[in-house]
């Protein structure tokens, strides 16, 4: 056995070098066979999903847009610890922390809160690592099927607290 015939992958197939007969060489029968296949597909059921009218079912582990949760009393849970920003592989999250003032206890749960919390939707890859990293169960990726809105400027893709915090 020469080295040329050894197949390392076990998938090697020897190409047939048989000369074509006259009937085969005018391709006539092969073309007819092919045409039968295509006409069968012509009458088959189409698999296209007509998007805006017809939506495809999402998988049960689908991750959509983010929300920042509130607790039972309606206070924001986020304490601006920055762990989500740290965990984010796409570096999409930025935040600025602020100290809670007197009289704001009904707004924020902890003494520290996120004055600015922004997610750049152009960078986010919806991996859900922020959700895992959050110690306060503040950020979640929802099953919302709403896509990020199309825009012509970069600013409109940076989602601030106004879009993220649940009402």
């Amino acid at each position, binding site marked *: 056995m020469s080295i040329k015939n050894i197949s390392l992958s076990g998938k090697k197939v020897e190409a047939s070098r048989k000369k074509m007969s006259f009937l085969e060489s005018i391709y006539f029968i092969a073309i007819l066979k*092919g*045409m039968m296949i295509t006409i069968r597909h*012509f009458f088959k059921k189409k698999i*296209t999903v*007509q998007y805006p009218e017809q939506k495809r079912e999402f998988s049960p582990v689908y991750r959509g847009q983010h929300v920042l949760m509130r607790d039972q009393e309606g206070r924001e849970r986020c304490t601006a610890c920055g762990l989500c920003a740290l965990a984010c592989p796409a570096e999409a999250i930025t935040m600025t922390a602020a100290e809670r003032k007197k009289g704001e206890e009904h707004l924020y749960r902890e003494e520290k809160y996120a004055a600015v919390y922004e997610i750049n939707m152009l960078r986010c890859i919806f991996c859900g690592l922020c959700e895992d990293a959050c110690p306060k169960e503040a950020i979640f990726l929802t099953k919302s099927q709403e896509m990020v809105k199309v825009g012509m400027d970069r600013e409109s893709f940076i989602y601030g607290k106004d879009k993220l915090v649940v009402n």
Partner: protein
Amino acid sequence: MDYIFLLEKLILIVIVFTVTLVFAMYETWAERKVAGFIQDRYGPNRAGIFGLLQPVCDGAKLFSKEEFMPASSNKILFALGPSVAMIVSLLGSAVIPWAKEFVVFGYHFVPQVADVNVALLYVVAVLSTGVYGIVLGGWASGNKYSLIGSIRAGAQMISYEIAMGLALIALVMMTGSLSLREITEQQSGMAWNVFVQPLTFLIFLVCSFAECNRTPFDLAECESELVNGHHTEFSSMKMAFYMFSEYVSMFFSSALISVLFFGGYNYPGMDWVSENWGVNIANLLAVGSILAKTTFFVFFYMWIRWTIPRFRYDQLMRLGWKMLFPLALINIFIVGVVILIMKN
């Protein structure tokens, strides 16, 4: 009398023109639709019901595109290329007989622009002129891909014209006439030529694919190798003219195939209809009949396009010269012998 004749022909020319162009317009739609259906998709279905407004949108888009002119090109030839391609593909339908004869208030109206007695010769001549549009446009672009594409197209058309001409000779030997009207008349009832000469039909069909530059013989365009072949450098309506001329010549050659081999405007029971329902209704049905046959062949063109991959250049030449050419010669011989036997 002469004025009426002129007016009649003028109206007819306008009608044939319009029908051809509208047909070609909807061929572009049908092509995408057929492609979609064969690939388990729907094809265009957003613009209008079933996407029927799609060709209008495409046309509007192409009109509003930038008119690009390469700096190195010969401007006159560059503009001439698509014009020649378009004119030549529109010329052919002049000799197609659309129906027998309408009788309106005692006036006989023949729906055929020109009943030339050498119509078949005219058709072959017009078809071979088609190569000028492609070669001129490709050469004037000053682009090597365009040039390669147009050279291929030239070589291909010349090679396949021989087999096509020989196939037509075999047909003419039997019909004894070059006039398309007479050929159609001979096939009245169901005496279609395709039943008598299936081999001739097959050779002619393959050659007309090559003449129209359709897949599997679209080496002139050949998107995967030559960008877009001879119309790489063309944009806007110039490009649209090339695309359109392809569809128009598809329409024309489908009509020609149905005239030569499938009885043209004849349909079974034509005499019965003209006796019982009147001549005009019979003729209207005849127009419908030839258009239906044409539509089928246009569909057939598309069906083939989305089935068979493109030939390699050497395969194309081998098929043309070593298969179809001898086959056509043998066919002539067989037809000759059969005619000789039948006569005695």
